[in-house]
């Protein structure tokens, strides 16, 4: 298990944990039954503590969005469990699951598609309150006003429609809506990727402020390393449905163990002229998720791949405090190459590879 132990002494039970979660999609239709399933997520285990931010970074097809959807309850895992405060979502009764819904909300990527174009802002933010029930119209109205204020929206804008707003303002509405039911965790799927640079910082500042104010946890999903590095207390790097490396940001960026992590870091376009842009070390194309490579899934693009990588899937091993990576020939020293993890870290680690 990857612990996200940051902030004040976390309770014994983490706010959210994923235990060996897998999501395989069967291609639809009666005739396609025999086709190979799309392995979107395979054997992922993670934890998020209250008030902390877990960042999941990876490129298209890595499964991070699917993971986010499973946490929020939009999808059910084919194997494994998503646990909220220790209780698996799958084993909850219907009313329990409804209550759990309000505890985990989502903020979407595309500000233009995340809001119903035919609803006013007020109604958009109010919708979760109406769904939850238990409040009078007056109470809902005042809640909406408060949420708007907290997220930096002018009260006068509440009667407008999304098309009149800029991308940044729309994301504020998305955030206000996600906050409406006072959730403990917000899954933020690429929340700033579609925004302008200067607006990005506005929204990130807002997210940080709200986190402090409400003791929120974030599950931040993004392909943008700079954003993840900025916001996350703990990072997990995903490739083709599996976690290939995880750890605290400073460490991960200073000494990544996995070649994919290294490639991601190298690929970040630095706004510093004259710095020789490093040649991208990975080549080739992303393999199909329905036919992932044998052994280590990254081997088809890895500069250090060898025969062993095709035969045996590397397990997640410890590389320093809180850092785990799955690689036979990592960039830095593990406890030892290829040998089982040494002593003290064993408590925190778990073989998450299936």
């Amino acid at each position, binding site marked *: 298990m990857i612990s996200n132990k940051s902030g004040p002494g976390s309770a014994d039970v983490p706010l959210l944990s994923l235990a060996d979660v897998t999501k395989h999609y069967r291609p639809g239709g009666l005739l396609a039954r025999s086709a190979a399933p799309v392995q979107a997520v395979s054997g992922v285990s993670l934890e998020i503590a209250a008030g902390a931010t877990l960042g999941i970074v990876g490129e298209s097809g890595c499964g991070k969005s699917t993971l986010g959807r499973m946490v*929020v309850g*939009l999808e059910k895992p084919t194997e494994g469990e998503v646990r909220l405060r220790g209780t698996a979502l799958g084993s909850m009764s219907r009313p329990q699951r409804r209550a759990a819904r309000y505890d985990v*909300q*989502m903020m979407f990527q595309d500000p233009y598609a995340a809001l*119903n174009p*035919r609803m006013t802002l007020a109604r958009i933010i109010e919708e979760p309150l109406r769904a*939850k029930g238990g409040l009078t119209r007056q109470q809902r109205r005042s809640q909406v006003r408060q949420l708007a204020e907290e997220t930096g929206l002018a009260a006068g804008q509440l009667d407008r429609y999304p*098309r009149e707003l*800029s991308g940044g303002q729309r994301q504020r509405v998305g955030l206000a809506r996600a906050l409406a039911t006072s959730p403990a965790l917000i899954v933020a799927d690429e929340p700033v990727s579609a925004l302008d640079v200067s607006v990005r910082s506005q929204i990130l500042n807002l997210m940080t402020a709200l986190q402090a104010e409400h003791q929120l946890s974030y599950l931040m999903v993004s392909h943008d390393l700079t954003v993840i590095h900025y916001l996350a207390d703990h990072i997990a790097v995903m490739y083709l449905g599996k976690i290939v490396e995880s750890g605290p940001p400073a460490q991960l960026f200073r000494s990544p163990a996995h070649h994919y992590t290294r490639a991601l870091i190298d690929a970040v376009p630095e706004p510093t002229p004259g710095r020789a842009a490093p040649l991208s070390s990975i080549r080739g194309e992303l393999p199909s998720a329905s036919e992932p490579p044998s052994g280590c899934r990254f081997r088809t693009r890895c500069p250090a791949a060898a025969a062993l990588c095709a035969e045996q899937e590397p397990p997640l091993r410890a590389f320093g405090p809180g850092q785990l990576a799955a690689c036979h020939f990592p960039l830095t020293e593990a406890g030892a190459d290829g040998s089982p993890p040494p002593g003290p870290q064993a408590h925190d680690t778990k073989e998450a590879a299936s």
Partner: protein
Amino acid sequence: MSMENVTTVLSGDEAGGLAEAEASGGWLWLRSFADNRLALAGLVVVVVLTLFSFLGPLFYHTDQIHTRIGMETLPPGTGRPLGTDDVGYDQLGRLMVGGQTTLEVAFGAAAVAVLVGVAWGAVAGYLGGFVDALMMRIVDALLAIPALLLLLYLSAVFQPNVLLLIVVVGLTAWLVPARLVRAEALTLRSREYVLAAKTMGVRTPTLIGRHIVTNSIGTILVNATFQVADAILVVAALSFLGLGISPPATNWGAMLSNGLNFTYSGYWWLTYPPGIAIVLTVVAFNLIGDGLRDAFGLDTRRR
């Protein structure tokens, strides 16, 4: 020319600023529509004909119940702007009464078709999977039945009144809006605001109504106008074949069909007025439908 010209070409928020420059609220399509002269003309024609049919008799009193032997097929003259028909009814008054029936059935049938079709299509498209397949196969099967023949059969067996006609015509016409709305629902159900509603625990019927149907309103409205036009033609066709509503009630189609018996007698006032009325109304609704389609930008990619 709609704003979509520019928005499809410019990327991202460059268009967002333009939207602000244009209009506010969710009623942009109304402005677009209002700028379309042909569509407005269509709307005016429909309004005028509706007023003519329903308010006309208040100003122009004629007896449309009792036939008047001895007053048949009189040409237009003083006191009878459009002459009389073959049983003595005043033709102008008949046109008004006929218009009432025609428009009632047309609007009514369109309403039935749209209500049933939208509900069916939205549910099928949103739920997807087996339910969708089943529901749409039913639609496919029903589409295979020629509507007109079915209506002929029903009209011959049951003596229809206005209400029955509305229901029957509507129930043969709901298949098209069902397909259209189902297609919209398929697209919309993976939109992020629909996913957001799901995560908040909005119940499915509410979700379909609030998010799917309201965002298909463009397609629905356009189709509704064409439904009205089609219904008029269907009723006219039925009456033409001698079926449909029985006298003293009448509709434009019946008047036309009746008048055609006298073509060679030169009684033009029996055929042209109802014929022109039908054509005007159908064309007007088509123009409105086209105008709405342009206003909603349905033929181009839209946000």
